[in-house]
């Protein structure tokens, strides 16, 4: 059996930052990741990272914008901590080696982003995630730790009321292993692939969130799913908010800059939930363009000029040319919203602690909550680093004071009996088919606009898929890189999380941030200014509610 003091699951920005903090605290650390760390989905983040470092800006304004963006369900105490850490975090990443774009005076360049009072999004062209991922990985590489690369964590083992370790599949050997750990940090990112139309990578399947849920952790606010306004039509590939931050326009088929109707003050730079709903409404009212891949609106960059577009939005130019066959310098980009981000996740406080002793979480896998019902662009990269570090510090402190973990051979057998059964069936359900049907269900019934009938239908279908999943079958007989087995593991994880999303969305009879109920179109602070907590039971998720952390910002109507 493998043994470590602190095991970090996931090696994107949050996982790496947690690992670095735990190493700094003197603990012995292992990272378990299903991708090489440099292939993590953090690297796909484009637009930038928020920090109120400009002379005209202030940390208070960043806090206010984030509270307002959250539609008043973000925890204000956590948001204050988060925004205060922003400046030092960005400076630290610069010192680690991140190559940021610069202003002529040599300072960090900043651009405007949606829902922000000032241009406070620091960036590295339109590949900020990649720049941060390289900088952090190269800094972490100077430290001592163990890397289990291309290992999928399938289970978190809890006994005697605390974490004892994890079970993971080594893709290369096709063997399951038990890894004993005093503390485990879940930093596996989101589960965006629950949806078919998503900007997320294929690897975003919520494995760590599902393993934590199975192990008894609360999942918080899972019904809040962000749809990014501008994704390429057929592929769902993200076109950064930075494209609008640099001055891009949205136009409907009549040529109108329709955002004037929905956000008269800031137009295209309204919050993401507002812009996504506006695009869907335009299309539903017959003002969209129609093409072979559905209806859409135009994102125009042509008026910005070739030089600006090609230098500040270099990757966007490549995406448009390679994946949509259009040149954004001379042509409008056809866009439509796509699932992009999960505000919800493993419930934590701002130290990354969950309700399970020894279990920590950070990054998109976690929910502190600082994003509340709607995340602002530029806050997610910051979250990975700020709370990754906090989770690493807390996990290290816990591990330092904990006895040796009690992980047993039985734990491995118990976890893997299920997977062995999948491979020994002569008949059963194909995991890819189940995954596709789940995605179609979530796209159709649990999208941007929701209502009771759709959510009930969605829930019925997800539960039917869960039943069929009981008979899932793995046909690939090989051990080495058995993607068929991994498909099944991931699909099982996602079905659990899909159920939590639908149940939470059905219960929340109001509209707040990204959760828009056409049958309950108003925000209802009297009943719903509270967090959803979902706990796994044999009958499905059991929902309870927790108060919102509140300091000094009174809830107001959200107008942009």
């Amino acid at each position, binding site marked *: 059996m493998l043994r470590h003091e602190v095991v970090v699951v996931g090696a994107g920005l949050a996982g790496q930052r947690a690992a670095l903090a735990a190493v700094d605290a003197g603990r012995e650390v292992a990272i378990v990741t299903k991708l090489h760390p440099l292939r993590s989905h953090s690297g796909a983040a484009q637009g930038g990272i928020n920090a109120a470092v400009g002379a005209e800006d202030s940390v208070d304004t960043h806090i206010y914008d984030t509270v307002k963006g959250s539609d008043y369900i973000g925890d204000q105490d956590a948001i204050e901590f988060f925004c205060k850490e922003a400046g030092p975090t960005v400076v630290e990443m610069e010192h680690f080696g991140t190559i940021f774009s610069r202003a002529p005076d040599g300072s960090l360049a900043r651009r405007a982003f949606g829902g922000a009072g000032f241009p406070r999004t620091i960036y590295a062209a339109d590949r900020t995630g990649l720049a941060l991922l390289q900088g952090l990985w190269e800094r972490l590489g100077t430290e001592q730790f163990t890397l289990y690369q291309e290992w999928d964590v399938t289970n978190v083992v809890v006994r005697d009321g605390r974490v004892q370790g994890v079970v993971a599949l080594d893709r290369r050997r096709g063997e399951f292993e038990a890894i004993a750990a005093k503390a485990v940090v879940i930093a596996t990112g989101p589960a965006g692939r629950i949806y078919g139309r998503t900007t997320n990578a294929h690897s975003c399947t919520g494995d760590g969130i599902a393993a934590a849920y199975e192990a008894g952790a609360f999942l918080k606010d899972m019904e809040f799913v962000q749809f990014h306004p501008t994704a390429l039509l057929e592929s769902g590939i993200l076109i950064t908010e930075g494209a609008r931050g640099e001055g891009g326009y949205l136009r409907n088929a009549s040529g109108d800059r329709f955002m004037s109707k929905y956000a008269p003050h800031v137009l295209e730079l309204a919050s993401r939930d507002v812009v996504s709903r506006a695009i869907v409404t335009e299309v539903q009212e017959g003002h969209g363009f129609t093409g072979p891949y559905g209806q859409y609106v135009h994102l125009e960059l042509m008026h910005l000029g070739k030089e600006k577009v090609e230098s500040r939005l270099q990757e966007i130019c490549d995406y448009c040319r390679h994946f949509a066959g259009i040149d954004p310098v001379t042509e409008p980009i056809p866009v439509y919203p796509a699932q992009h981000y999960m505000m919800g996740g493993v419930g934590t406080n701002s130290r990354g602690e969950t309700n399970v002793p020894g279990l920590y979480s950070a990054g998109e896998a976690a929910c502190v909550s600082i994003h509340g019902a709607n995340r602002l662009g530029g806050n997610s990269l910051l979250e990975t680093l700020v709370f990754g570090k906090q989770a690493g510090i807390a996990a290290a402190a816990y591990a330092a004071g904990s006895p040796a973990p009690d992980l047993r051979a039985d734990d491995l057998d118990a976890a893997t009996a299920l997977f062995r059964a999948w491979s020994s069936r002569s008949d059963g359900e194909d995991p890819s088919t189940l995954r596709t049907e789940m995605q179609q269900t979530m796209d159709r019934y649990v999208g941007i606009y929701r209502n009771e009938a759709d959510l009930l239908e969605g829930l019925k279908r997800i539960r039917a898929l869960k039943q069929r999943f009981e008979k899932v079958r793995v*046909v690939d007989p090989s051990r080495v890189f058995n993607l068929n087995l991994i498909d099944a593991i991931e699909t099982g994880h996602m079905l659990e999380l899909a159920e939590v999303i639908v149940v939470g969305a059905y219960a929340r009879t109001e509209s707040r941030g990204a959760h828009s109920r056409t049958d309950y179109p108003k925000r209802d602070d009297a009943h719903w200014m509270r967090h959803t907590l979902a706990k796994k039971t044999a009958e499905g998720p059991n929902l309870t509610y927790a108060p919102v952390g509140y300091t000094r910002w009174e809830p107001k109507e959200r107008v942009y």
Partner: protein
Amino acid sequence: MSEDTVAATFDVYRYDPAHDTAPRYQRYTLNVSPHTPVLTALLRIRAEVDPSLTLRYSCRSAICGSCAMQINSKSRLACETHIGPEMARHGRVVVEPMRNQPVLRDLVVDQASFWRQYDLIEPHLKLDPAHPMPEGKATAMTPEQVDGFKETPRCIACAACYSACPAVEADAEFPGPMALAKLYRFVVDPRDQAHQDRLVRIQPNGLWLCLRCHLCTEACPKDVRPSERIRDLKEMAIAVQGATEHGSRHAVGFKDNIVDRGLLNEMRLVRQTYGTVGMLGQLGQGLKVWRKKPEILHKPRRIEGSEELEKIYDALDPAPKEGP
């Protein structure tokens, strides 16, 4: 965008060490629109036809670097290689694992040597304790200094260059294009304080094994242009410590020959590269050349008008390129 579809033929390399004694090719036929990426087609094959087909993939938008493979014999990202042009040019889409890395299964290769070379160039800022980072604020760096990195920050470590590189194939000690482009990124970083040391160390450690074929630059999906950065590293290395290696002495000698006489004098070049004693080691090779080309022993002469060449060199390179 078009709705027309083509019947595309895929010949996919299959090898499972547990069940196959040798690699084989499996044919799949799919109706796809011409702008469908190869990755999308392979995932459709996995979902609809054969779930045992094994490959690496993640972001499907050319930013994670997972899905590099050989497509019709070129090292490419499957996610951004479109089927239409491949079918038009080759009549089918042959999909094989990357080269220069052992196959684990089907299209999945063992990247240990690639990552080892990346680690060997020490890809992290090296600081001199006497010159710490500015306390509590970012280092000042002008946009021009950022431009100095060229396109190297775009590298996604997909290893397409490593797969395409004949020098990697010939010599396992060659760091490969990605690692050298990464080294360049640190050598030009104004925050790094080990520039000279990095250049001095790379000169005898593989820098001159590059064959200057530019296949890496052709293969790179992010336009990082590794071969051009390797050329820059060579110039900087010579500027820092002169020509210390066979490779660098050959390059300098080559230029001297041309400037002096307008003509390559092989005997002189061999002496410049290997030294008078070292020339003895090249005797066998020299004899072979002499049999085919006896004039290599003729007295060196200067060609008419060679002073014009000198002017060209002066105009191109008025002073030796500054090291960092």
